[in-house]
């Protein structure tokens, strides 16, 4: 993995996923390892994403590295009209690694072609966000002890949700069964269902939440965003249907865990937070260890 950019979840093999999970577990046991002494990491957020940026910057700081960068593009040379090409060319001369988020799709792949140093994609528009996917895998592996043969319920916006698409692709290596639970207008796109069919992976589609999570190992909830609806009446109808409440967890499996990429708005009621099956804040913590692992492996320090 040394010097290998991470742009898309498909860039890494199953073996590489496991190597990342293994190293993430080491960092979780011992989070302050100063492997990045004398390293400078650029954190380039061309669009704001506080959570992802802080998670990355925490990972870098815990590794003892130094961070340069920006959290939005308004005060940068891009605002003066510099091309993206020139920004990446220049910063790749300063830093040892670039973490970047950009609203334009494919920007991270392009950056990896021109940059002297490896690139970690922290989200390129609606395209890819591979470190989110890897931290989801780590959270699933940690809570279930395996990635194989699990039943995953994906809930919410399955049409536009980049996170659930990447998770579906990555988990498809491990013989899962899926329950897709969404409003009819936000169903899993056909191309992903075709992909599952081609791999012989079973899935069901439901509109109702409560009865369809009882046999799940993982319930992965995403936000149903208002801006996805052209018909706001339709939004009003569904917005309260996809709210996970503590009572709904009665009768679910003991090993079941509720995941959410965060930020949460109202799709998981706060009364779930105290339930030991709620795992989303631990999931966010796992993000730091997973990102530490990815950074250390790409820089060849593990």
């Amino acid at each position: 993995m040394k010097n290998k950019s991470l742009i898309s979840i498909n860039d890494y093999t199953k073996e590489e996923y496991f190597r990342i999970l293994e190293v993430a577990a080491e960092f979780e046991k011992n989070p302050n390892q100063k492997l990045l002494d004398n390293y400078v990491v650029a954190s380039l957020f061309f669009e704001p994403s506080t959570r992802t940026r802080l998670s990355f910057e925490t990972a870098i700081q815990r590794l003892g590295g130094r961070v340069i960068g920006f959290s939005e593009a308004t005060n940068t040379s891009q605002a003066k009209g510099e091309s993206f090409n020139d920004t990446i060319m220049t910063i790749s001369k300063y830093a040892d690694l670039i973490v970047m988020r950009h609203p334009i799709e494919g920007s991270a792949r392009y950056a990896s072609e021109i940059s002297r140093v490896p690139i970690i994609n922290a989200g390129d528009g609606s395209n890819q966000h591979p470190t989110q996917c890897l931290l989801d895998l780590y959270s699933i592996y940690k809570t279930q002890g395996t990635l194989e043969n699990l039943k995953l319920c994906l809930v919410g916006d399955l049409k536009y949700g980049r996170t659930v698409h990447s998770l579906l692709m990555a988990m498809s290596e491990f013989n899962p069964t899926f329950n897709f639970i969404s409003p009819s207008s936000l169903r899993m796109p056909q191309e992903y269902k075709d992909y599952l069919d081609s791999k012989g992976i079973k899935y069901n589609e439901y509109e109702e939440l409560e009865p369809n999570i009882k046999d799940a190992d993982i319930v992965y909830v995403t936000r149903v965003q208002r801006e996805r609806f052209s018909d706001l009446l339709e939004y009003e109808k569904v917005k309260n249907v996809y709210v996970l409440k503590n009572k709904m967890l009665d009768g679910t499996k003991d090993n079941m865990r509720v995941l959410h990429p965060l930020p949460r708005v109202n799709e998981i009621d706060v009364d779930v937070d105290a339930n030991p099956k709620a795992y989303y804040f631990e999931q966010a913590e796992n993000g730091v260890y997973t990102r530490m692992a990815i950074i250390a492996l790409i820089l060849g320090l593990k």
Partner: protein
Amino acid sequence: MKEELTVKAIENGTVIDHIQADKLYKILSIIGIENFDTPVFFGNNLPSKKYGTKAIIKIADKYPSDDDANKIALIDPKAVINIIKDFKVVDKRQVQLPEKIEGFVKCFNPKCITNHEKVSTKFTVVKKDGKIGLKCRYCEKITWEDNIEII
């Protein structure tokens, strides 16, 4: 009706034959016919044993590059390219759709980096239900054949 009589024979050059009738203008446009300075002849809705009707293009003293052949294959994979020397066909080949297409097709995704920066497009050719699609190396979206636009 013999087609030699319909569309004038050329002494040296290229004949693109067996073009589906509705693809003629697209092929003329992608090979950049307006920039040619040698004689060009073409005919449309000619009788074809294989397809009922067909189109044909004859270009004097010009020979297609691999890039040209790829472009033609993308629009009409059934077209045939004949190389003519002294009025005789010296080479005849069915165009072949390549695995990768670089540089001359626009990615249809308006949010793709190739539509925002000076980045040459790169695609992998995919097929689904008999349709050709181009998967973008950058944004990973597929431009299906109905949306293909030549740059």
